[in-house]
């Protein structure tokens, strides 16, 4: 019985990591239609930021999280105002431009922080495991689960219950019309992009202690996050949550029954079928043509 519970938790944990990384992408892609292939690199920047703060200033993980959020958000702002700003009417070109940004960020980090793998420490009180129903559940993963839920709530609150969120939704519906009502849509876009990038940085910081921190760690994050957002439905937060749950537990389940390679292949196949039959995603309703 405890194996089942252990497996259930593993699925939940994978899902939470997927959601953590996909959240920032959901905001940027959902709200602005910008396909940011450099999203993985922002996750990497978050991880390296944490390593830098820990190794140079000895800051424990928790305070690092906040600092890293703003550092990577600033990086996102710079990227948006220098490059992405020109591409809002050309969604497919953003794929190429952001891929170019990704390559540059990777090489810049490789030159500055070196190509070696970097070590990020888990905080002392979180490095153990807690016995629940006879199974050792890693407490750090519980921490990630809790924090992801909190971030989700924060994001939902910002989008639905704040003035910035209202403006963002207006600009998403119709950028030109929103500008007519005095909303500075350019600034809203920059803020949104920074917010999304900050979330990615936070994901990187949280994931760093349990994954390996290397200049090219971003690539496989961005492919999975992209799948989660598209399957969940463009611009639908609930969709992103449910689809990361589905894809996460699916991967974990198949990996336990078969092996990890087939798990990855089958989940990708599931994405192909899901996008084919529900292109607009699980939670966006049919729009009248």
């Amino acid at each position: 019985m405890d194996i089942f519970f252990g497996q259930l938790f593993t699925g939940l944990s994978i899902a939470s990591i997927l959601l953590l990384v996909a959240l920032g992408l959901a905001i940027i892609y959902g709200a602005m239609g910008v396909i940011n292939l450099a999203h993985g690199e922002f996750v990497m920047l978050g991880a390296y930021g944490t390593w830098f703060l820990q190794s140079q200033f000895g800051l424990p993980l928790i305070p690092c999280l906040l600092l890293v959020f703003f550092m990577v958000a600033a990086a996102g702002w710079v990227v948006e105002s220098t490059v992405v700003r020109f591409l809002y009417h050309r969604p497919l070109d953003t794929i190429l431009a952001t891929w170019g940004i990704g390559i540059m960020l990777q090489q810049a980090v490789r030159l500055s922080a070196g190509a070696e793998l970097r070590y990020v420490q888990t905080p002392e009180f979180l490095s153990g495991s807690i016995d629940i129903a006879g199974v050792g559940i890693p407490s750090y993963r519980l921490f990630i689960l809790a924090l992801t839920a909190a971030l989700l709530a924060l994001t939902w609150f910002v989008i639905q219950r704040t003035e910035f969120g209202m403006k963002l939704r207006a600009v998403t519906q119709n950028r030109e019309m929103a500008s007519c009502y005095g909303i500075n849509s350019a600034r809203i876009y920059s803020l949104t992009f920074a917010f999304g990038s900050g979330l990615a940085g936070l994901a990187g910081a949280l994931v760093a202690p349990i994954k390996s921190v290397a200049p090219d760690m971003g690539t496989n994050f961005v492919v999975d996050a992209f799948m989660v957002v598209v399957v969940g439905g463009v611009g639908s937060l609930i969709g992103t949550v449910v689809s990361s749950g589905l894809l996460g537990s699916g991967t974990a389940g198949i990996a336990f029954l078969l092996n990890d390679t087939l798990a990855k292949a089958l989940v990708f196949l599931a994405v192909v079928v899901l996008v084919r039959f529900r292109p607009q995603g699980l939670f966006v309703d049919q729009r009248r043509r």
Partner: protein
Amino acid sequence: MSKSTLSRSKPYAQLAAYLLFCAVILAVPSFVTDAFLLNKFARYLALGLAAAALALSWGYAGILNLGQGVSFGIGAYAIAMHLKLKTSPVHTGSAGLPDFMVWNNLDHLPWFWQPFHSSLFAVAAGILAPVVVALLLGSFMFRARIAGVYVAIITLAMLAVVNLLFIDQQAYTGGFNGITDLAWLEAGSVTFDPYSPAFYYLSAGALSLCLLLGLAFTRSKAGLILQAIRNDADRVRFFGYDVAAYQSLAFAVSAGMAGLAGMLYAMVLEFASPTFMGVPLSLSMVIWAAVGGRGSLLGAAIGAILVNFMQGSLSESFLDTWQLILGGMFILVVVFLPNGLSSLIGILADRLTRPARQTPDTALAALSEAPRAGRTPS
């Protein structure tokens, strides 16, 4: 000259440009004899063919195929299987059985490897297998009127699946190492040593043939309808065209050409590896086509050749920073030159012949617009 004569001369100018390019690449071996350089150029031409194939489906039909590596890889593996069967295994000893099969404890050649003893079958499979895969995937997607970003996502996911399966089935595909130590292709009396002018002519000939056939295809009515589909797929349906059939057609022709490019690439490198079906290479092809000019097969081919040539020479001289330069270049071209370098020439030519007429950039907005106006996160 008045507008109409200029435009009537346009198709001939384009044909002349294609023929000139073919002449230039076919003339190279007469004044370049360094074996190493010939091999390198042959490789760039093969990649040029892959980019041209992508320009056909993306530039003309608006189908952004992020999984071009699937067709490219299948072509590469088809010819590699044939050439592997022709080499006598040195390290494992058992007669005729490829080394990776011995390592994976296979005692006989699997049935689907048998036909690859014949080079004709291998070459045919290298082109037709990608076409069949493209037709299946094409109708699977286009019957459901999938477009824009969703096509990109599905092709990317298919690429990941194919890559994973090729790596996993090590006994039959050589797994992560791929198929190495290949013999040289023989056709009649000619053996195509990848360091000989003969191979260069094969590569240049294939590129020229495909460019001219591609030009003919795009200049035909079918090509025109594809451009109309890219412009407004729904409107085309109301004129009685089965849009899904046309999109699958463009997708399949592009896959066939990419399969041929994969074959040339595997032969020039003398091995086939799952990295041919990796995300980075497929995305690079998209970038080469964008840099060269996705609207024209020749532009995309030239884009691929230039970028790879620069990448080759940059990575030697700027060991640490070549990736920075490359990434920067991609951004500049995509942001400031939406139609790639070839449009640069077009713009310059415009400036010279008459005052620049500001062409509205609406064309790009219509480029299979992603459903951006999705509902905000609720």
